[in-house]
């Protein structure tokens, strides 16, 4: 299984290089965004799908990662290397996630949803209160460090193209996404992942089998928070900004709907959901303005569709789009 995941990762890497080298700057930026949505959605789908814990607070956890990253990139000269900064963003979010997770492990269903909802609403207020330190309403600007010379040279040598800042960030994002997905895939097939599923399916049976319910739940939450932190850090790099308006309740809800659309618990589903989050708005907004809506109205069409599809998926196809497709393929094969 592990070997299969590594092979898939290698294949994915090749696809990423081919796609990023042959698309425009604008598309590169979009793929970069898709990478961090995919990381956040991957973490959330493991938490909700495998462990059965619902989190509406992942936008807030992304904010923690983003602000950590932004705080460390305040001046261009003496900043740490980006991988170190992202690792620190993960660690800080892990700590916050562990605190939330310990509380969350004792809650279930609507209580957990309400508590994480409160988290999502509460966190954007913190930078406003500590305005001096965290930039208040305007947020913190992120000063991207220069691409290391050796890397730029190597990229030019391999691809024959100049490595732009945007393409570099897209590569960074996808590299991170591939690593995260391999780790998550292996984790969910490991003993730990099976424990999580056991806790989700039947608490009593899991406890009788010797699984520590609280520990399994906290583990799942912490892993998921780490993903959100990494995604937040990448978001801050891409947007060159960490501001409260970027981490509203809407972000948390859209992440959840992306995971539900793709199919709870499925990493492929998380990718599908992330792709929808990234590419659907542009398509739908264009169609909306063609139909005579104003720009502001057309911009709301995408969330409208996410919401409607989420409701429909819950009502009609609880396995999500990816699961529904799989079912269709199996049905075709068997008939």
């Amino acid at each position, binding site marked *: 299984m592990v070997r299969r995941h590594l092979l898939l990762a290698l294949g994915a890497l090749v696809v990423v290089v081919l796609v990023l080298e042959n698309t425009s700057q604008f598309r590169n930026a979009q793929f970069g965004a898709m990478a961090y949505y995919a990381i956040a959605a991957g973490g959330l789908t493991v938490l909700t799908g495998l462990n059965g814990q*619902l989190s509406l607070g992942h936008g807030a956890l992304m904010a923690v990662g983003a602000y950590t990253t932004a705080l460390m990139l305040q001046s261009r000269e003496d900043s740490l290397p980006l991988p170190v900064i992202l690792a620190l963003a993960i660690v800080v979010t892990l700590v916050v996630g562990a605190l939330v997770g310990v509380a969350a492990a004792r809650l279930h269903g*609507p209580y957990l949803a*309400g508590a994480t909802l409160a988290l999502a609403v509460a966190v954007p207020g913190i930078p406003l209160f500590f305005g001096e330190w965290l930039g208040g309403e305007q947020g913190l600007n992120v000063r991207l460090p220069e691409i290391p010379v050796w890397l730029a040279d190597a990229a030019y040598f391999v691809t024959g193209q100049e490595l732009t800042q945007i393409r570099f960030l897209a590569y960074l994002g996808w590299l991170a996404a591939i690593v995260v997905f391999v780790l998550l895939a292996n984790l969910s097939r490991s003993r730990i992942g099976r424990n999580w599923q056991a806790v989700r399916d039947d608490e009593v049976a899991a406890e009788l089998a010797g699984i520590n319910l609280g520990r399994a739940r906290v583990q799942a939450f912490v892993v998921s928070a780490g993903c959100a932190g990494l995604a937040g850090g990448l978001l801050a790099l891409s947007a060159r900004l960490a501001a409260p308006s970027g981490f509203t309740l*809407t972000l948390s809800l859209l992440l*959840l*709907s992306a995971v539900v659309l793709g199919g709870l618990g499925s990493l492929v589903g998380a990718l599908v959901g992330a792709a929808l989050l990234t590419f659907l708005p542009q398509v739908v907004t264009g169609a909306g303005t063609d139909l005579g809506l104003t720009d502001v*109205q057309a911009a709301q069409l995408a969330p409208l569709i996410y*919401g409607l599809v989420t*409701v429909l998926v*819950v009502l009609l196809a609880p396995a999500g789009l990816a699961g529904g497709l799989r079912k269709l393929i199996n049905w075709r094969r068997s008939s």
Partner: protein
Amino acid sequence: MQQLLTTVLTGLTLGVIYAAFALALVLIWRATRIVNFAQAPMAMITTYIALVLIDAGYSYWLGFVAALLSGLVLGAVVERFVVRFVSGKSEVNAVILTLGLFIVLHALAAIIFGSRYRSFPAPFGLRGFQVGDTTIALTGFGVFTILAVGVVMVGLVLLFRGTDLGLRMRASAFNQEVSRLLGVKVGRMLTLGWALAALVGSLSGLLIAGGGLVHPSYMDGVVVYGFVAAVLGGLDSPVGAVVGGVLLGLSLSLVSGYVGSELVPLAALVILMVVLLLKPGGLFASVRERRV
């Protein structure tokens, strides 16, 4: 002393509104074991309906009544055509469903009514009463708020305690199977319960909006406060929801007055966690043990 009085009076007025919202959540929880997170955008939509009427030149009271009635209809429609299909299934699905509705209503409101801030009128004065030569923080609209919520609560108590219909609603919330065997049309009672809850939610939406600004996400914080208030009171108990709402309003007003209004949602989160971890049954739970 003056500031403390101001804080307490503001907190009381806000707390009454949170109590109404919490009551709406509790009504639905008792009937269908679902926390209706979409209550906030539902109240937002009905407030916009009132605003459109008022802006078109009709009186405040026509808008007020129209909002309450559209709340009633919206609640019934949502229960009958959406929520009915997940009742009794996995609770995660029900929560996700209400969140899907949340996103849908939000986007719809922004498309139909626009996403800019619009001011909402108040039928009574927004300046504090004069006592001697000091102005206290109780406004005409504040008194109206407290009275309006009071009337609704008395009405609900009379309905649930004093009428046959109320008895049937309580029976179907308590035990669907037995009620059905006894000839209660449970489905109809559930629809009615959601409709009533949405009406109470709409009232809180109107009261929050009065004299302030309205935009598609102006109720987002209120759903958190309403939920915290409901949990504070045990999520099962209407009386608890009201007491929880007032307590929460007072505490949040203290935080807002003495620490900073930016930290109000954080304070709500802290209160929620403390209640859930120390006294998960809330202050007024009817059952002794509650699985949270």
